[in-house]
């Protein structure tokens, strides 16, 4: 229980930090961004009167001292008032995010799970076998694989499988002529479009998981309790899974935070390559259009989502490693 509370507390602090960073950063914008934004908005359509105020609060600018502005900023957030997006004027930022977030969540979420499972399993096997021919070749290959930038891999995959071999679509998350909905056609099309992006994530991330797990497996196998398990004549599978892998996987779970950060970063850029309608793609659009409200909103959502995922994994770790349950 102590563990759970401690973790919750930490993530609350981290969330608060994310919010505050979001508040402070716009200060870096040269000039008067609110005016600029309003001018551009007016160029696209009628601007609702309270928008100016919203923008000010959102960007932490305007009148009053820092503290009052901060409190009002938090107030905005609580009411989920992120302003109107410039890129998709006059759609509210929240709507934009609500539309594109699921795409990213599903794609990145599934691909991460696939990559992690594959990597950890392969790593366990590689660690168990220790030194057969294919294991020895696997390590340098994976080392190289982990150094490949996501977006370059995306480019290569796109080139190979969409240009040269017209196996997969060039861009998009779905066939634009289809209606968005839960129809079989649409889902099928969505899956079809998701193959290359998912493959990018899986291929790029599997190496890290594999190497980490393999190293831990090798050192776990040297532990006395594994030898004791052998001495007890337990079946090999039980030893490998229940005694070796079960202990070796712990650091991978603990280090999930860092890995997730990388995967998120990678997927942002990858979405750009595939023009995949997710949150990363829209972040870039926002950047290109100086769409500060959208940028702020997306940054916040990404941060909170990553924090949330990490909290879940940390809680999972507490469950998986009984030693943490003792209050230290």
């Amino acid at each position, binding site marked *: 229980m102590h563990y759970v509370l401690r973790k919750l507390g930490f993530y609350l602090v981290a969330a608060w930090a994310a919010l505050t960073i979001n508040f402070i950063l716009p200060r870096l914008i040269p000039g008067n961004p609110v005016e600029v934004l309003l001018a551009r908005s007016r160029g696209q359509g009628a601007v609702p009167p309270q928008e100016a105020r919203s923008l000010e609060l959102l960007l932490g600018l305007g009148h009053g001292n820092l503290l009052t502005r901060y409190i009002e900023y938090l107030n905005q957030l609580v009411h989920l008032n992120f302003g109107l997006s410039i890129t998709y004027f006059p759609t509210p930022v929240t709507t934009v995010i609500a539309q594109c977030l699921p795409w990213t969540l599903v794609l990145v979420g599934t691909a991460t799970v696939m990559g992690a499972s594959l990597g950890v399993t392969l790593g366990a096997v590689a660690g168990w076998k220790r030194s057969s021919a294919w294991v020895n070749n696997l390590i340098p290959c994976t080392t190289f694989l982990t150094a490949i930038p996501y977006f370059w891999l995306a480019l290569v995959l796109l080139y190979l499988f969409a240009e040269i071999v017209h196996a997969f679509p060039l861009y998009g998350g779905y066939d634009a002529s289809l209606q968005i909905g839960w129809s079989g056609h649409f889902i099928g099309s969505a899956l079809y479009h998701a193959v290359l992006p998912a493959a990018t994530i899986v291929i790029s991330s599997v190496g890290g998981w594999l190497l980490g797990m393999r190293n831990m497996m090798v050192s776990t196998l040297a532990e006395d309790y594994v030898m004791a398990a052998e001495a*007890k004549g337990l079946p090999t599978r039980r030893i490998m899974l229940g005694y070796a892998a079960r202990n070796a996987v712990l650091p991978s779970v603990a280090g999930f935070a860092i890995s997730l950060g990388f995967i998120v970063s990678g997927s942002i850029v990858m979405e750009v390559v595939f023009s995949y309608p997710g949150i990363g793609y829209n972040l870039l659009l926002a950047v290109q259009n100086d769409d500060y409200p959208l940028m702020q909103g997306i940054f916040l959502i990404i941060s909170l989502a990553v924090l949330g995922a990490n909290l879940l994994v940390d809680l999972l770790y507490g469950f998986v490693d009984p030693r943490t349950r003792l209050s230290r």
Partner: protein
Amino acid sequence: MTPPTVRQSPTATDTAAGDIVLSAQHVSVDYDGDRVTHAVRDVSLDLRRGEVLGIAGESACGKSTLAYAITNLLRPPARLVTGSSINYWPSDGSGPVDLATMSTDKLRNFRWKQLAIVFQSAMNSLNPVTSLDRQFNDVFKAHAPEMDAKSRRRRAEELLEMVDIEPGRLSSFPHELSGGMRQRAVIAMALALNPEIVVMDEPTTALDVVVQREVLDEIERLREDLGFSVIFITHDLSLLLEIGDRLAIMYAGEIVELAPTTEIQRSPAHPYTLGLLRSFPDLLGIRRDLRGIPGSPPNLSEPLVGCAFAPRCAFAFASCASTAPALRPLSAPADTGRPDLLAPSPGRWVACHLHDLAHVANPPPELAGGSDT
């Protein structure tokens, strides 16, 4: 210069009691590496049913390696040298079972049912993320698949009670138990299938003296109740003097003396044994000077010429540096033509030129067979 003799091996025929349950003959273990280290050099010994055989020696004398060799747990870079044989005689009388060349499947079957091993650090020999009952279950499921969940649990609780641990602790994790409890749990797990042989490698070294006492008493009691044989490995000779029936003293990968405990304590034959006995105080005995043994053990990756202990031996003489002594039965004074000397009991073996008629007639007074004892 006499050529080195073929090493004889102590067998049951020269002693009075009991039949043999485990016999290791000419066991040698090498560690591969830049230079090959000969960790165990041509060791032969027998374990009799129901006895406690102690193996004592300094760190790195090869005793743990020997234990792993006997239980077929050697891992690379350690390697059992060909010519080693390890045989086991089950209690039902069926013939010798060759452990060294057993197939993996048969070995798995054999392990724990007939031979269990208690490792040095109980904390490390228990899976840290699994509860005790699951670990007991692993053992039962692997070797007694006919047991159902209830009987497994009952048996596990029985075992814990046997070692004085409250059965309710069955669902605990290893880190929730104290050091002594953990060690006792490990012993309980070792006895789960009523093995005939239990090998214990420094089972009490990591515990403080009081807990050590409890655990030792526990082991003694269990042995009396269940009648298994024990190979007890330790650097602490004083423990073995209490609990051991026979002792094997190891030095530099070889056995230098093998004898019943009472004999060794009364009159050690090998200078190294003498040194060991003198290096710890006797709690209730007479005060005497404590002496260590100067020098340090030889490097086992270099070829050894002559007796391995010679550089540190107070009684060394010319032959010691040139010829390696073989493990031979300790000669009775009748053989030496000196009937006035005290006759050592049968079943004593020693690897020392001082007791070899070919080299010297009279061992010095401090050692067995010496004129002043």
